[in-house]
Every structure is written in C-alpha cells, then in structure tokens.
C-alpha cells in the first residue's frame, strides 16, 4: 500500500473481491433513523404539555384562590340562659 491510495472495501464486498450478487445490494447500507410511531410522539407531546400546564398554572390557581378567599368574617353570637334539660 505504500505510495498508493488508501482504499477501503465497501462492506458489501467480501475480502475476496466478489462482486455484489444483485444491483440492489450495491447501495451502501446507511443506517436509517429509527422510525417512531406517530402516536407515541403525540402522546409524549400531550404529557409534556399537561405537565407544563400543571406547573405553569399552579401559581395562577393559587393566586385565584387567595384573591377570592373569604376576607371578612361576621359572627353572630347569642348568649342565653336557661335550664336546658340540665340535671341540675
């Protein structure tokens, strides 16, 4: 190999230099990205969106709660005397 070009054999060729048996196998085998189901992507998106909503809306819900909390309390008292079925 000295002075020559550095060459690598394609994967589909054997070390003996056999030609590919079919034209289709001449296409280099490039690993294709793993295909995911469209449904799984949608489900993940929905979950992420729901989690974001819960985290993001918690302060708003708290603010709404405290904004509308009962503020003033008016208490009627009634003090009375009687025997009221007491044994005494």
């Amino acid at each position, binding site marked *: 190999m000295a002075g020559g070009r550095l060459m690598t054999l394609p994967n589909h060729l054997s070390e003996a230099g056999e030609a590919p048996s079919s034209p289709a196998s001449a296409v280099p085998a490039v690993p294709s990205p793993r295909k995911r189901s469209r449904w799984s992507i949608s489900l993940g998106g929905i979950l992420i969106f729901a989690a974001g909503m819960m985290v993001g809306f918690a302060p708003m819900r708290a603010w709404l709660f405290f904004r509308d909390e009962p503020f003033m*309390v008016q208490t009627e008292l009634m003090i009375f005397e*009687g025997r009221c079925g*007491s044994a005494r």
Partner: protein
Amino acid sequence: MLNAAQSDSEAKPVDLKPILSKCGKVTVLSEPTVMTLVGQTAEFRSGGERFLPAADRSGESPRFFGIAASITPKLRPSGKMEFVYEIQNSSIVNDDAGEPAQFDETVIESSAILETGEWHVVDMNQPTQANVRHGRVRILALRPYWMMRHR
C-alpha cells in the same frame, strides 16, 4: 345535657331550634355581632370588673366577671373555615360586704369547622357553684357569615 357540640375539633354545626325547645323559657342575655378578618381575633366582653386586693397587697387589681369570647376564624386548606374560640364565663360567688369577692370561672377553649350560616353551640354546663346556685346554665351559640373581599 344538651346535645351540643363542644370540645371537638370536628364538631358539626347544630340547629338551634331543638336546643331552644329543650330549654323551655330562655333568657337571651345578649346578641352581639363581631366582625374580623381571617386569621385575626375578634373579642367580645359583656360583664364588669371588680377590684380585688393584689396578692402582694400593693393595691387593687381589676378582675373581669361576665362572659368574654374571643374568636379567630382560620382558613383550612380544604377551603372550609375553622373557628378557634375561647369563652370565659365567670361570675361572683359571694358578694358579701367586707369580704373579698370570690369568683367562679369556666374557660372553654375549642374549635369547630363551620359552614357559613350554621350555628355552633357551646354548652357551658360546667358544675360550677354559680350554676348550682342559680339552677340555670349559660349557653353561647355562634353563627359565622363570611364575605368575599370587595374589589
């Protein structure tokens, strides 16, 4: 005894009508209304003060007799309102001239979870000397109304 809720943190509100029907003729001593903020304490006092000799004989100190109620509404995480109250019912037992007055005192500290507009009855049926003497008992009922903040 009355079937009144007292000394119970999960006390349920009571309707006043059956209690009043048991009592027969009752004397309403007072019907005050107090208003307070959530988390703040409202106090009501009805009675008087009697000056008693101080323990160290340095003079006289006033002592309250009558009914004193302090109510603190609190907001629970569930959204319900909890009323923490302390009611003091004291009266003078002997009122003889020339002798220092003796007091008969009952203090009830409790709390109740109430809805708006519902009565809670505190039965002060304690075996006190004053109750035995008069044969009558004092009862305090409270009914809260809470209002939203106006904007």
